[in-house]
């Protein structure tokens, strides 16, 4: 009985400290996206609902939830309804091993990096099944593109993490962060600069974001895999996409930018100010920075052509990661970077 109560208490805590903030972040991420991209295109963005349009996400959510869920006549109804859930579950599930602060993690898994990769590779099923179950050629084309793209970029993503693993000597996310301690220049973005760039670009491809949003490709296949979705089921896909972006930003911060560590850790001349203390604040600051980069990149670049996406993944990223893996190993071997753990 106690075990069950404890389990329920755990669920409540997970909901309160991870799911709720995450959903709120997603809500305001959509708002931020419209504001930021608007600003970059010399527009204003939403400003009607509430002061500065701050209640816009809630208006959107209410609108989406009140709309009818349309089931296409020839669609496979079970898979059609399961697909959005399959898309969102991994995006939330990975947060179990993501440390937001020192010790602030639900499961301190030893094989944390593998868990992250395994679960994030599950997200593609939501897209594929949505595309297939809709029984529409546009949706199927979107699903096909997405499947090939995500599987290809997963390799580049995993390979770019190999450098981190070599330098940190661990698969545990907390250990990886702790191995980077010592200030801004000790973080892994510096020794692994190409890896960091490849990781972030692959993250764009993994989350199907511009300039790699081939799965949606509104101008070619009208919205790709979710063309037949409406109302709440579309909202779940939407939520999944943004949750994935937040997740990838968090992972970039953890793997290459020292997670919750302060950038000024070793800078003695700053004195005892809060700037030198590592805290969840720094994690959030880095998270917001990378989330902003997602929007910035979307506002800047046009969509890649599909064959060039595949070319970039296989012929550019994977060779570079392979070479830099050796370089990282040499760094450790020659003691240029002190290996953690």
């Amino acid at each position, binding site marked *: 009985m106690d075990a069950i109560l404890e389990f329920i208490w755990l669920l409540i805590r997970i909901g309160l400290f991870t799911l709720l903030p995450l959903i709120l972040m997603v809500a305001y991420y959509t708002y931020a996206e419209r504001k*930021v991209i608007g600003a970059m295109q010399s527009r*204003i963005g939403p400003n009607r609902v509430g002061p500065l349009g701050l209640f816009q996400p809630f208006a959107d959510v209410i609108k989406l939830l009140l709309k009818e869920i349309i089931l296409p006549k020839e669609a496979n109804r079970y898979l059609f309804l399961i697909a959005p859930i399959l898309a969102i579950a991994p995006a939330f599930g990975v947060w179990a091993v993501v440390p937001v602060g020192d010790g602030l993690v639900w499961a301190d898994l030893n094989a944390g990096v593998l868990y992250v990769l395994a679960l994030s590779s599950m997200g593609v099923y939501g897209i594929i099944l949505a595309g297939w179950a809709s029984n529409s050629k546009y949706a199927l084309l979107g699903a096909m593109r997405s499947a090939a793209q995500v599987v290809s970029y997963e390799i580049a993503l995993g390979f770019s993490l190999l450098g981190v693993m070599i330098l940190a000597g661990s698969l545990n996310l907390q250990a990886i962060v702790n191995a980077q301690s010592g200030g801004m220049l000790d973080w892994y973005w510096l020794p692994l600069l190409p890896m960091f*760039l490849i990781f972030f670009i692959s993250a764009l491809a993994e989350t199907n974001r511009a300039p790699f949003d081939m799965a949606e490709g509104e101008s070619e296949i009208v919205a790709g895999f979710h063309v037949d979705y409406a109302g709440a089921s579309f909202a779940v896909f939407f939520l999944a996409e943004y949750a994935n972006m937040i997740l990838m930003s968090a992972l970039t911060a953890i793997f290459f930018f020292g997670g919750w560590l302060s950038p000024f850790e070793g800078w003695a001349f700053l004195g005892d100010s809060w700037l030198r203390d590592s805290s969840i604040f720094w994690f959030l600051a880095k998270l917001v920075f990378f989330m902003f980069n997602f929007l910035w990149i979307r506002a*800047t670049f046009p969509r890649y052509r599909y064959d060039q996406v595949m070319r970039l993944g296989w012929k550019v990223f994977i060779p570079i990661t392979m070479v830099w893996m050796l370089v990282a190993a040499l760094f450790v071997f020659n003691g240029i970077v002190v290996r953690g753990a």
Partner: protein
Amino acid sequence: MNKIIRYFKSLLMIELFQGLSVTIKHMFKPKVTVFYPEEKIPKSNRFRGIPALRRYTNGEERCIGCKLCEAVCPALAISIDSEMRSDGSRRTTLYEIDLFKCIFCGFCEESCPVDSIVLTDFADYHMEDPKESVLNKQQLLALGDRFEQSISKNRQQDAAYR
């Protein structure tokens, strides 16, 4: 050599960062959005908006039922019936414009010998029922009454160029 430079350029993503710098600069530039219902951009006096029928200053409708506008209308949006009125003048009994067909070309206005049918500079209208797209004579005359000031002002300003 050129090839090598280009290779390094693409590897260092210089052009991509150039693009990024353009967008971030624009983020802090003043915005050009017009707050539409509150703010409106000025319209030309030749603006062609919703059609209307005008009256003379004594309240007599101008239209004499010549059907030139009906004949010239490229979209066949105008339909007219006319009859003799009790005072012996020819007047329309039916004057309808379908706004869904109308392409706002202004040919009707050009063809009208008595300046009766005009295109006003009013374009912010809507209808709740597709059936309401057909404006009848009363509605057109009412529109003409409502916008008479702006119609005559625009015609006066443009008169020198005709």
